[in-house]
């Protein structure tokens, strides 16, 4: 029993990690309708930036802040220079962001080399909680906490501010929104930068768990895409619930159907889409 509970908790924490990884993409893809294939690379970049600062004896939290800031700035620049030219053109987005991910990933390899690294768990959180006979690392509880915080933040932005509505309207009909007196360009730039910052943030927070290595970007990307799709485009709530579901099912699946573990997430996605072609919480397309 206790081992089952421990695994449930593990799954929950893992799901939250999924949510954190995917949340930036959820916003950019689901809400802004931009396919950002560079998401995984921005994730990776966040981790590497923090790594550099931490190696220079900067405190973990300060490094986190700096990494988030820098990825946000990069997101801002990318949007201003490139992304803004291709709103609404999905295939161009695929090509452009794919190209960007190549460039950024290779730059990372150039700057930081090919060796693998990890980020240290910040001292405060390096202990573990003992639950019955097993131990549960504090840092994972912290990830759960941050995941919830992010969800809360998104909920606030969506319901208590106009930003959510502006973005959705901007995707529907950009020109009309600007004719109503809203600087859509600015909002979109901001949102893209926010999405990039979230990618960077999850990179730093995921660093101690996943590590950093060449080629990780595509794994992160696929994972995030799956989370977004299962949840349903345009619904971060869907991503939240979808991510947790994946985390729990995958964790239990590792124990119950070990031979399927290569496929678990794909199977979950397939089943969800067969039953609900627009994802769990996706809006039906008009």
């Amino acid at each position, binding site marked *: 029993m206790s081992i089952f509970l421990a695994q449930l908790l593990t799954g929950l924490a893992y799901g939250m990690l999924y949510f954190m990884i995917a949340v930036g993409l959820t916003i950019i893809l689901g809400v802004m309708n931009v396919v950002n294939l560079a998401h995984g690379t921005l994730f990776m970049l966040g981790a590497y930036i923090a790594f550099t600062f931490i190696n220079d004896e900067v405190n973990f939290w300060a490094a986190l802040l700096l990494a988030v800031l820098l990825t946000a700035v990069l997101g801002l620049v990318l949007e201003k220079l490139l992304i803004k030219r291709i709103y609404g053109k999905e295939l161009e987005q695929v090509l452009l962001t794919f190209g960007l991910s190549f460039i950024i990933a290779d730059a990372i390899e150039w700057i930081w080399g090919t060796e693998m690294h990890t980020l240290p768990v910040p001292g405060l959180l390096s202990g573990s909680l003992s639950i019955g006979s097993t131990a549960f690392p504090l840092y994972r509880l912290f990830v759960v906490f941050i995941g919830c915080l992010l969800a809360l933040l998104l909920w606030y932005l969506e319901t208590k501010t106009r930003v959510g509505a502006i973005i959705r309207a901007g995707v529907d009909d950009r020109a009309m929104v600007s004719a109503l007196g809203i600087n859509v360009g600015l909002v979109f730039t901001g949102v893209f930068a926010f999405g990039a910052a979230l990618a960077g943030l999850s990179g730093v927070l995921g660093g101690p768990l996943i590590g950093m290595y060449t080629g990780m970007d595509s794994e992160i990307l696929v994972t995030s895409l799956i989370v977004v799709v299962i949840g349903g485009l345009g619904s971060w709530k869907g991503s939240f619930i979808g991510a947790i579901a994946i985390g729990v099912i995958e*964790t239990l699946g590792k124990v119950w159907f070990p031979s399927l573990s290569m496929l678990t997430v794909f199977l979950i996605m397939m089943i969800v889409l067969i039953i609900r072609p627009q994802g769990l919480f996706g809006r039906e397309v008009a």
Partner: protein
Amino acid sequence: AGCAQSSSTSSGSGSDKGEGSSSSVKIGFILSQTGTFAPLSEGILNGFQLYLDQHNGTLGGKKVEIKVEDDEANPQVALRKYRQLVHAQKVDLLVGPISSAVAYALRDEVEKDKKVLIDANAAGDDLSWGKKSDYVYRVSFSNWQNGSNAAKYLAEQVGKKAVILAPDYPAGKEVLRAFKAAFEAAGGKVVKEIYPKLNTNDFAPYLQEAAAEKPDLIYAFFAGSDGIRFVTQYKEFGLKGKIPLAGSLEFGDELITQPTGEAAEGIIAGINYSPYLDNELNKQFVEAYKAKYGKLPNVFSVEGYDAAAMLDKAITEAGSLRSENLIKVLKGISFDSPRGPIMIDPATNNPIQNFYISKNTLKDGAIVPEVIETVEKVTMPETSPFE
């Protein structure tokens, strides 16, 4: 400082005049420079280049020109790159791949084209058994060697009841089957085998499952980022210090112990190389490597270094670049390596080499694999014992 190096000619100018003339040798590398295998490729290239630097950019007295191609760890791409190197660039011989799948794909082609391939990393057992080729010589090690060497020591000194883990792919299965056979032959018992998928982010459920068996030890084979995560999470979930962890040579290698740091302490690994090995050649090698690249060499750097050393000797002895002459010399060739004496076993085309049972200890903040025992001349059986 520790940048990847350029892939162009190794030294000076004028190496391209007189192509195919016997005064120079063109070597094609097929490596995985992008993706998870990138650090391995970098190590191999660095080691090879270092050897060239130390020998005037020559092997067997011939100026060396190297061409490096990225196979993206994909046999299909590798085959295309192979054709390019052999048919368009007309390389004399090949040093290659990281991935065993790529090695198996190349194997038929080199047979057909009669090109010598020095296998600098791919560890698939069958390359020495069922798919052995006269044109493929492994300078690194095989999965069988990696899995079996520490088993006897572990069964006798650590415990009889083991849970074993490895990723669910051919190398993982091959290492564990070798371990299991040797471990049980030495009186141990494997009570559970666990195969997580390759690139598992979260080992927690597996660790919980393994711990539930209450084994005397856990033996694992995880390379790359999987290895780092496994070792870190082993500690995080409170298993470190509770159940002894042992593993294949990866667990004693810089590539993993450096990033994991203290979490890797106490792991017993059967390694074939460490920068701390106490021999003269190694000391020189480590010095030179550090001077050139600003970091410690790892097992892959040595593979590259040895590939060059072996070719140097082979070309000298063969006195020609013709494959027929080279393969005569390569069979049974022996040379000294920073990891100890090496001899290519003519029965398997696989190196006979020493392995070292070592325990990771923390010294001045760095993990050092302290050698406990040397297993001399680990030799692959001539045919597969598993059929």
